[in-house]
Each structure stands twice: as structure tokens, then as C-alpha cells.
């Protein structure tokens, strides 16, 4: 049947604008699919390889301190294959700059360690060597041999920079007082283990204990026994590998990319199916006489349909082929972003399986769209070869009263909209899709900005967050801080690691103790509603509540080793979904009342006079013994950087959505006008002028546009919901809602696209040869 195939192909070439449009839409979908998935696969491979190389443990525990011998004896727990540990301590750096307050999570290096390896760029550290994480090294441009001074409890120690260090367990190193990692104030460091033991005055002790499980055992099988065994040593945190902070953070980033890499191509492909469907359906409807002719000649349905299916597959193939040229660059860009951010040391490669999958999905999309549109061939009777198809009636709506008196062209324009409802729906959907996708993606930066503005300037308007090494009464700490020149407000809060228990379930969290009248550390949910902790109660983060299956009013147990070695009952006074971060909040009064200890703060929040943050920071060095200092503006900056890849993806999708919308609107509009060449040519023959027809086209386009805008807004709410779900993590609960500014801009852009399509239609009308119209038979 090569001749018929040839005919189908040539007709497709004659409709090249529409066909190229369909190819481009599929190509966009496959570009996002292939690029993001390849980026994800490479990132995941790099991460897995990094983790494998480091021989990462299965379970991680953080304790105040446990003797090595006691830790090793934990292998007695059934299911534990091996136990190892590290001495890890937060220590301030003293030597960088007089204004800087930087801290290091210092790890004692032991050459005999076989698990949780820390990778060093040089030889194992000698007594005065120090390796520092890549972010801080980059930030301060440390060179081999540079002198690094550490200070602890007023004692300075001299080290020499020996190189950089990294580990999968510290891919995402966030200081306790910050929301995002910032190499300028906090990173990991590695020194000789014996030297660290001397500094901490702890010999043969671990603060981090890690476990390897026997084959067949899971975290849940050994959790309770480990908790019981480590409780006497001040268990602060216990979690399995996938929940380990750093690994979890990276996994969640990858998950977002993966979900976006699937969700958005599905949208593009759905539009491609819709578009291809409409194009081919119109082609078949137009050619039903010819198809009837072929049937009259004895062609089977299969022979006829297969030509269109092959064409659909070819469109899909070409779309995927085009995408396969560009998607590797897109994927590599995404990969490099993660690879360099997390120091995986991975290499980008093109995954042939994803490429093959892209081709298969694109071709199946083409074939499905073709089949859906050309299955009407089955209904075409060969007798239709004998007569041209009768004009279809469409929907003859009663004209609105204001149009009753309007000219014929206005009536024709209006009636054309209702006569070809599929065309109208297609153009309106194209406008709506583009509008919704761009609005939802474009609203993300606005929502992010608003969330950060509210958090850093309204709810938590402190400028400096200081983690103290010596605990004191919160009011006393605040009073001391207020005596520093340039401080406007100061507040002491308590931050302690602890365990939340509900029945058999438990979770480890950094818990916060605050005063009843919190001033610069307000607790606010994502709907901007303030919450206050109450006596005997706890305000619980929604993610934790969900994990532990806890509801408002339930009683839970809290174990905070630094305050008490017993579990204390609290009732859940409320559940809070915070936009960023989130923990459990108690009143300071709970310390004496429930834990039996005096009110103790270990974190100082300071709001400074405008422009005096650095002055105050410098003075803090002398006034307080601190292990860490975070500057809120810097934290906000780093958080924004952290969201950069998400912003990048949303911006790209915004661009793709706009392009897709423009292509679809243009293509469907051109199909629409080609269908009406005879009608419009006849009007011209009758003496109508081009300008009037142009106005009629504009009227039609405006009707489609208004419909599109009306559909587009609710559609954008749906897309926002999808985006919200994609972005939601334990520590991020941003609700994306359409921004009015973006809506307004998109309204104008879509209007321009629709009017431009109308203009292109008008140019087509200008090219009509009236003599050709006379030859038309229907």
C-alpha cells in the first residue's frame, strides 16, 4: 500500500505547520522527560557510587558520649553485624577574620575505620593537620599550609590546612541554627582522632555510633534494643540510613526532579495527543470521500489506518529524535548542578535506556493519538466515495441579542465558534494550558519570596542566631545581649535534641523551648496563623505528627537527654505546618515543671539596629562563648541558593509552557482558517473586503482567548496543586497559589499570542486565489 502511504505522507507535508507543531510539542515533552530523567539517573548513580565507596552504615545514633568498649559491645544485639563510631564536635574557628564567626563540625579521623569513610584529598592527618569541607575551603580559598586556629572554651589551637574532606554523611551540612547549608559559617573538618580526644577531654569515646545490620534485618528489628542500650549515654538521635539528614536531603532533591521529570512530560504529551488527535481527525474528516474511494477500491480498514498509525509513530519518532539532541545538555546541566553542590564526584553519561524509553513513549503517544483520531475510518462507508460529505451542522446557538443587529461578518464569526466547537475547545485549551502552566511555575518565585520575607522579616526578624556553649537562664542571656551596643531585641531560647515517642513509634527532633511572649521567634503556620506553646503541652510539627500518627490532644512522651534521663508526658496542644523547618515547641516553664531542671537557654537570638549586624557580631565574640553563629540574611541567601535548582526547573517549564501554548494556538488557528478557505473566499468573491474579514477573525480569536482565560485560571489552580505536592518535604510546606502579577502578565502574553495567530490567519486569507475558490466543489 505504498502509494496510499505516500499520499498520507504528502498530505502531512502539506500540513507541515501542524505536523511540525505536533513534533515540537512531543519534542518538548521528551526534552523534559529525557533531560530530567537522565539528570536524575546520573545524579542517583553518582550518589549511590559515592555512598558505596564510603561504605556507609545502616543506622546512625548520636549520643552525648559513649566509651568505645561500650559501643563495640552493642554487636551483642541480635541483627547487628558491626558497630563503629566517631568523635564529632562543633568547634569555632578563630583565625579567618576578626568579623567572622565560623564553626566546624570536627571529626576525629581514625585510619582503622572501615565504615562511614571520610574522603581526604591528602594523607591521613598528622597532629596539626586539618582538612576542611569543600564549601568552606572555596568560600575562604584556603591553601595548603594556611594556618587555621580553632578556639574552644577560650583555648586557641593552631592547625595547618592540609586539604579538603567530604563524606556522603555530610553532603548537606546545616548548622543547628540555620535552614540552609552555608560554607562561610559552617562545614565539616577532619583532624587526627587523638588530637580531638585531647581537645574534648574524652578518651576513647564516641559521640556518633553507627551500625551495620546482618542480612535480613531491618532498622525496626533492632531500634528498640539500640535505644535501650544507648539511653544511658544520652541518646540524642537515632535513625536509619535513608533518614540520615544528609542522605535524606539529597534523596528528596532527587525525588522532586524525578516527579517533575514524569509529571510535566505527561502534561506535554497529553497536549500532543490532543493536538495530533485534532489535526488527524480533521484530515480524515476532510478526506472521508477519498477514504471511501479507497474502500470502494477494496482497501481494508487495517491498510488505511496503518498508514496513519505509521505517520503518528513517525511524528513521535521525530519528536523524540529532536529532543534526543537537546535533552542531554539539559540533563547534564541539572546533573552538574547537583553533582557540584553535593560533591558527588560523578560523571554525566547518557542513559541509553532512557533514550530508548523516550522514543518508545513518543512513538506510542503518536500512534495512540493517531488511532484515536483515525478510528473514525472504521465508520466511513465506501458509499461516501459517491458523494461529497454534507456540511456538518455543528451547534446552532441562538445569537446574543447584541449580535442580532450586528453585521453578517460578526454573526458568521460568532457562529463559526459554535459551529466548530472542537476548534474552539482546542484553541481555548491551548491558551488555558499555557496560561496555567506559566502562571503556576511563575508563581513559585513570588510565593518563595513572600514566604522568606514573612519568615525572616516578620515572624523571625532576628539578625543573628548564636549557639552558646554555656547554658544560662534565658532572661539573663537576653539581658546580657541587650547590653551590647546596637542590639534592639534579644531572646534566649533552648534547642535540644531529643526523642518523641508515641506507643511503639518514635522520632528524633531538635526541640525548642521558648518564652510565652515570644518576640523574635514566633511560631507561625503556613496560613500565617500564630501559635503559642502552653504549659504542659507541646506544639508539634505536622510532618512529625503524621509520622507518629499523633493528633491534637494526644499525649506523647518526650526524652531529652541533656535535660533529664526520664521520659516526660506532654499533650499535643496543636499541630503546626510551618513553611520552612518545623520542630516541637515547649514553654520554658516546662523545664522546671516537667523536667525538673531550671530554665536553661543555649541559643541567643538578636535583632540589631539597621546596618550594625557586623558590629554586634564582632562584639559577641567577647560577650559569649559560642560554638556557632548564623546571620539570618546569609541564611536566607543560602536557602535561596538551595532552591536554585527548583527555580531553574520551574523557569524552564515556564518557557516550555509558553512555547507549547504558542505552537498549539498557532497550529490550531491555522487549521481552522484552512478549513474555511472556501467560505472566506466566497465572501471575498461576493465583495467583502479583507479588513472586515480580518476583524471577524479577531472577534473569533478574542472569544477563544476569553474562554481560554476562563478555563486557564482553575487549571492553574490544579497545576499549582501539583507543584505544591512536588515541592512538599518534611521541612518545606510551601503552598503555591497563582500570583495576580503573573496572571496579569500571562493574560497579556496570551492575548498577544492569540492576536498574532489571528494575524497569521489574516495573511492566509490575503493569499486566497479567488479562481481556486470557483473550482471548489463543496
Amino acid at each position, binding site marked *: *500500500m*505504498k*502509494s*496510499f502511504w*505516500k*499520499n*498520507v*505522507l*504528502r*498530505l502531512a507535508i*502539506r500540513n507541515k505547520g501542524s505536523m511540525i507543531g505536533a513534533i515540537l510539542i512531543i519534542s518538548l515533552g521528551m526534552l523534559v522527560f529525557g533531560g530530567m530523567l537522565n539528570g536524575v539517573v546520573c545524579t542517583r548513580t553518582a550518589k549511590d557510587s559515592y555512598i558505596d565507596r564510603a561504605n556507609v552504615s545502616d543506622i546512625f545514633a548520636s549520643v552525648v558520649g559513649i566509651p568505645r568498649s561500650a559501643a563495640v559491645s552493642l554487636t551483642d544485639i541480635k541483627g547487628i553485624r558491626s558497630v563503629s563510631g566517631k568523635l564529632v564536635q562543633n568547634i569555632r574557628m578563630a583565625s579567618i577574620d576578626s568579623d567572622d564567626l565560623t564553626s566546624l563540625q570536627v571529626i576525629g579521623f581514625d585510619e582503622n575505620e572501615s565504615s562511614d569513610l571520610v574522603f581526604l584529598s591528602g594523607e591521613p592527618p598528622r597532629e596539626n593537620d586539618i582538612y576542611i569541607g569543600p564549601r568552606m575551603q572555596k568560600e575562604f580559598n584556603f591553601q595548603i599550609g594556611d594556618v587555621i586556629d580553632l578556639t574552644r572554651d577560650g583555648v586557641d589551637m593552631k592547625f595547618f590546612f592540609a586539604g579538603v574532606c567530604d563524606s556522603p554523611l555530610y553532603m548537606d551540612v546545616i548548622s543547628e541554627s540555620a535552614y540552609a547549608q552555608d560554607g562561610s559559617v559552617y562545614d565539616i573538618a577532619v583532624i587526627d582522632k587523638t588530637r580531638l580526644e585531647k581537645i574534648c577531654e574524652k578518651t576513647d569515646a564516641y559521640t556518633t555510633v553507627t551500625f551495620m545490620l546482618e542480612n535480613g534485618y531491618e532498622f525496626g528489628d533492632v531500634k528498640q534494643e539500640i535505644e535501650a542500650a544507648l539511653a544511658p549515654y544520652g541518646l540524642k538521635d537515632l535513625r536509619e540510613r535513608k533518614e540520615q539528614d544528609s542522605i535524606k536531603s539529597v534523596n528528596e532533591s532527587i525525588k522532586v526532579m524525578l516527579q517533575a521529570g514524569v509529571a510535566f512530560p505527561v502534561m506535554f504529551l497529553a497536549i500532543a495527543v490532543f493536538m495530533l488527535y485534532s489535526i488527524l481527525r480533521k484530515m480524515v474528516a476532510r478526506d472521508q*470521500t*477519498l477514504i*471511501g*474511494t479507497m*474502500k*470502494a*477500491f*477494496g*482497501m*481494508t480498514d487495517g491498510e488505511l489506518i496503518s498508514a496513519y498509525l505509521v505517520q503518528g509513530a513517525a511524528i513521535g519518532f521525530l519528536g523524540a529524535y529532536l529532543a534526543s539532541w537537546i535533552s542531554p545538555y539539559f540533563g547534564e546541566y541539572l546533573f552538574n548542578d547537583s553533582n557540584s553542590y553535593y560533591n558527588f564526584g560523578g560523571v554525566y553519561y547518557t542513559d541509553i535506556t532512557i533514550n530508548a524509553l523516550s522514543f518508545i513513549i513518543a512513538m506510542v503517544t503518536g500512534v495512540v493519538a493517531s488511532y484515536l483520531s483515525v478510528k473514525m475510518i472504521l465508520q466511513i*462507508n*465506501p*458509499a461516501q*466515495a*459517491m458523494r*461529497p460529505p454534507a456540511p456538518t451542522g455543528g451547534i446552532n446557538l441562538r445569537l446574543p441579542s447584541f449580535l442580532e443587529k450586528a453585521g453578517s461578518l460578526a454573526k458568521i464569526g460568532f457562529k463559526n465558534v459554535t459551529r466548530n466547537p472542537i476548534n474552539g475547545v482546542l484553541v481555548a485549551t491551548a491558551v488555558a494550558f499555557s496560561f496555567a502552566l506559566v502562571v503556576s511555575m511563575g508563581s513559585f518565585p513570588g510565593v518563595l519570596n513572600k514566604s522568606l520575607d514573612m519568615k525572616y522579616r516578620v515572624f523571625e526578624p532576628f539578625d543573628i542566631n548564636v549557639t552558646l556553649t554555656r547554658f544560662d537562664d534565658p532572661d539573663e542571656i537576653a539581658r546580657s545581649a541587650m547590653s551590647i551596643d546596637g542590639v534592639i531585641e534579644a531572646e534566649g531560647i533552648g534547642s535540644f535534641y531529643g526523642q518523641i515517642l508515641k506507643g511503639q513509634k518514635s522520632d528524633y527532633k531538635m526541640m525548642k523551648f521558648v518564652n510565652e511572649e515570644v518576640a523574635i521567634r514566633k511560631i507561625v503556620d503556613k496560613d500565617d496563623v500564630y501559635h503559642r506553646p502552653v504549659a504542659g503541652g507541646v506544639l508539634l510539627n505536622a510532618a512529625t505528627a503524621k509520622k507518629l500518627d499523633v493528633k491534637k490532644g494526644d499525649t506523647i512522651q518526650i526524652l531529652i537527654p541533656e535535660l533529664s534521663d526520664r521520659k516526660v508526658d506532654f499533650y499535643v496542644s496543636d499541630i503546626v505546618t510551618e513553611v520552612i523547618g518545623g520542630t516541637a515547641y515547649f514553654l520554658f516553664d516546662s523545664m522546671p515543671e516537667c523536667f525538673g531542671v531550671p530554665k536553661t537557654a543555649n541559643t541567643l537570638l538578636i535583632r540589631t539596629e539597621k546596618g550594625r549586624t557586623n558590629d554586634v557580631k564582632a562584639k559577641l565574640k567577647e560577650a559569649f562563648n559560642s560554638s556557632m553563629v548564623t546571620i539570618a540574611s546569609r541564611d536566607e541567601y543560602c536557602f535561596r541558593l538551595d532552591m536554585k535548582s527548583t527555580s531553574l526547573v520551574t523557569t524552564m517549564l515556564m518557557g516550555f509552557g509558553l512555547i507549547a501554548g504558542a505552537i498549539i494556538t498557532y497550529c490550531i488557528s491555522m487549521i481552522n482558517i484552512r478549513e474555511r478557505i472556501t467560505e472566506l473566499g466566497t465572501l471575498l468573491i461576493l465583495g467583502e473586503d479583507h479588513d472586515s474579514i480580518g476583524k471577524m477573525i479577531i472577534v473569533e480569536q478574542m472569544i477563544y482567548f476569553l474562554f481560554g482565560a476562563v478555563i486557564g485560571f482553575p487549571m492553574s489552580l490544579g497545576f499549582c496543586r501539583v507543584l505544591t505536592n512536588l515541592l512538599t518535604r518534611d521541612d518545606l510546606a510551601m503552598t503555591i497559589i497563582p500570583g495576580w502579577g503573573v496572571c496579569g502578565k500571562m493574560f497579556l502574553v496570551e492575548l498577544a499570542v492569540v492576536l498574532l495567530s489571528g494575524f497569521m490567519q489574516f495573511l492566509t486569507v490575503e493569499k486566497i486565489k479567488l479562481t481556486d475558490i470557483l473550482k471548489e*466543489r463543496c
Partner: protein
Amino acid sequence: MSVMVKGENIHKIYRTGDVEVHALRGVNFEIYDGEFIVILGPSGSGKSTLLNVVGGLETAEDGVLTFRGETVDWGKKSFMTEYRRKHIGFVFQFYNLLPGLTALENVELAGELSSDPLDPKKLIEDVGLADRAKNYPSSMSGGQQQRVAIARALCKNPDVLLCDEPTGALDSKTSVQVLKLLWDFNRNYKKPIIMVTHNADIARIANRVFYFKDGVIDHIAENQNPENPEEINW
């Protein structure tokens, strides 16, 4: 001459909503090998419907149609497709050429459907369009397009050629050329042609003329001396 196609008590009803149109009301006929049949009648009399039923384009509500003694199974779609493919050739009033194919390719298309096709190039030459073989239908006149359509119908080497108003859209001079082609085919290949027309003058080239009225063959006229189309004046 043996009977090639035979219809007995053929009924055909078109239904549109509640409206029923009885297009054929018990039609009986026989078509013999090598005959040139012309069907005449006013609009709506059922002549095109009969052509469609004979060509296997439509099924009848009642009656029996046999082709060389074998009953045409209207209920079986695959049989009908095979029947059209093997035995029937069509020429349409509006040519129905595939716009994406050249004149020669349109003819070749039909050849691909047949197990015993005629040479497409020779047919294009026979219809006098050798110099337009590579032209697309859009650049050809109506007469030229109809000649391509005839070549296409003949290329399948069909047992019966059915023509529905083949000159309906053509001027008289071109019509004569088209009719001459059909007449020559009928003479040279001894294969029957059934032609529906409004033009009574064309009946003069036929062996027999079926006069249709209100869905039945009102009467059949035999023409002992069919005329050459070139001798007809209208």
C-alpha cells in the same frame, strides 16, 4: 453471454432519525458479460443506490445479489472488501483522486490492490495523459482528472466497471473523450460497464438501458446498435 451480476428483489431503505426513504423497492436485474448498461432516471429514483449495492458499497435490506453465481455476503465486511478489491472498478462523478499523488501514482495505487493489474504507464498513455503523468490532480483540468480516474479504475483490471455520472462535471467535448475511453474499454476487454447518468443522450452508446422510477426499474430498453460516443451530439 453468461450472467455476471444478478439481483433479485433488492430492497434498500435509508433511515435518518424517524424518516425512512425506500430507495430500492424490490429491484430485479441481470448484467451479462461484455454489456454496456446505462441507468437513467430522475433524481432520487434509486439509480445510484443500485450502483452502490452492485459495487458492494452498501448493503441491501432484502434480496439476493449474485456475482458469477456466487451470493454476495452483505453481512461479512471482509467478504465485501475482497469483492470490491477483486471484481469492481469505480469511476466517480468528482474523480476522487488522491491529492497527494501524481496522476501516475494514483493509477499505480489501484494496481497495488490487484493481483492481475494492467500496466499503469500504458493506461496513462491510453487516456492521453503521458505528458501529465507526473502532475498532481490540483494542476489538472476536470477532464484530465476524470481520465486519470478512469485509468485508475481500469488498472485494477476489474470484472465490472461502475461509473456514477462520470461526465456530470464535464463539458460536452471532454465528456465525449471520457465516454470514448469507457466505450473502448468495454469493446476491447469485453467487460461490462454499468453507468449511471442523467443524460438521456448517453443511453445511445449502451447495449441496454435501465429506466428507474420510484425505486424500481420501470422498464428496460435494448439497443441493437449502440453508437460510438464520438457520433453523439448533445
